[in-house]
């Protein structure tokens, strides 16, 4: 059981009276990079929120590292959607990253030099070291996302759960983030990412979870991510332009 980082069994969740997720069962193994993919309204964000107890669950059982979430919070780094926080907040990029270190700094102590250095190092990894003292409202969408990632990195978690970190970012940011995710995986960390771009799934993730209110397909990307399964997940809303043509998927919502 050591190898199982996330175990979800028969999970169901609802908004008001509408069931958004039902019969969700899957297990994530250590050291994998998993993409969670599905159409709009498939419940991708709800899935993350529910397993992290941010959204009430109707039924089911969720375990991280074999234990309930509340016992292993420190081992989990969550990166919410960029739009979920207030970017007009009076704070600088480096202060946001330092936030990720609060657990290590302790409540009454001030951040020490090595904490500051660690925060700078994370910003450097994201190519953001020259923006450290910039107020966050002055950063672009991609730069904000990189600051968010840097904050998660300094937390030094074993499992990272990220909600659409690549949505609406520039190509440079996307590359920087993917490089970090691959490095995390190499260091034996486990990463789960809600992802929206079907074209890059094969390149980015070694496992994929196709979600549409329930788990449609889940497994190694090579085995699961094929035309048939994608069409099934997206229903009739997908047009396939042919692999031999331009290797392009277009999704019509």
């Amino acid at each position, binding site marked *: 059981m050591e190898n199982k980082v996330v175990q979800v069994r028969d999970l169901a969740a609802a908004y008001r009276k509408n069931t958004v997720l039902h019969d969700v069962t899957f297990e994530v193994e250590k050291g994998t990079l998993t993409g969670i993919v599905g159409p709009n309204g498939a419940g991708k964000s709800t899935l993350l*929120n529910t397993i*992290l*107890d*941010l959204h009430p669950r109707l039924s089911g059982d969720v375990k991280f590292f074999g234990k309930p979430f*509340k016992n292993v*919070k*420190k081992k*989990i780094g*969550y990166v*919410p959607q960029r739009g*979920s*926080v*207030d970017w007009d*907040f*009076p*704070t*600088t990029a480096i*202060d*946001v990253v330092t*936030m990720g270190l*609060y*657990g290590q*700094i302790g*409540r*009454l102590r001030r951040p020490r030099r090595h904490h500051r250095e660690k925060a700078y190092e994370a910003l450097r990894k994201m190519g953001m070291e020259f923006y450290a003292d910039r*107020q966050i409202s002055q950063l672009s969408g991609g730069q904000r996302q990189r600051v968010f990632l840097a904050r998660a990195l300094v*937390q030094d978690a074993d499992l990272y759960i990220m909600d659409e970190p690549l949505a609406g970012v520039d190509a440079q940011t996307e590359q920087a983030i993917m490089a970090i995710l691959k490095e995390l995986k190499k260091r034996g960390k486990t990463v789960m990412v809600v992802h929206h771009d079907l074209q890059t799934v094969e390149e980015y993730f070694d496992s994929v979870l196709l979600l549409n209110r329930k788990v449609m397909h889940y497994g190694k990307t090579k085995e699961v991510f094929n035309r048939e399964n994608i069409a099934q997940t997206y229903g009739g809303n997908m047009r396939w332009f042919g692999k031999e043509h331009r290797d392009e998927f277009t999704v019509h919502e």
Partner: protein
Amino acid sequence: MEMFFYGFMQRAFQASFLISLIAPILGLFLVLRRQSLMADTLSHVSLAGVALGLLIGINPTWTNILVVIIIAILLEFLRQIYRTYSEISIAILMSVGMAVALVLMEIGAGRTTLSVTQFLFGSIVTINKEQIWMLLGLTIIIGLLYLIYQKPMYVLTFDEETAFTVGLPIKMMSILFNVLTGVTIAVIMPIVGALLVSAIIILPAAISLRLSKSFYGVILNGMVIALVGMLSGLVASYELGTPPGASITIILMLIFAVITLAKYMLHYLKFDRLFNKSQG
């Protein structure tokens, strides 16, 4: 400067100094938590608290604090229920507070020499030693709690979801914050008046937000702004015989206008980099 020889003016200056220390801290969190109207609600509710105290013949400050604490806790639960419409609970409780205050006042009319008008508009003549001590105690409590909880509060205010997932006691912190805001309002309301107490808490932080890029910068600048606004407001109130709360609010608004104009002009003259550098 004869005004400094009057005991009530000395107490008013002492109170202003203490209020200037706590208002920007509470104000900044209220603004960032999108709860700036909560201060207004609590001040209306605190009128009901005062009216209750006058009616049953207990020191109105104590009934006031009790009522406001209950409502502050209630507000947090309503905030959780109406997540997306958090202003609903604020609007409802504001009117209910006012309505209850008016009814209690009418029932109690003629039973006491203290008039509710005094609490509506505030009066510096009525500040007594006990209030100064209470304010000092409150300042110390808020100062200590701020030192202990500044980091968790900062995370909670910036990003409530992450605050939860890293295991911070978010409910307890939110309730404690609301309660402290309520008690502060109850304590300073007789001085500056129920109608304008929220302005004195919110405005310094709101003005300071335009000046500083860092969190601590906003709080420190806010304290300076509050101090300047409150002291000059008091002097104006004494010299012109105007109500203290109103005088302070108008001066704070003037500061806001001057800073906004100056910032705009500096920006226009391309000096804004110089300007930003001088801020913490």
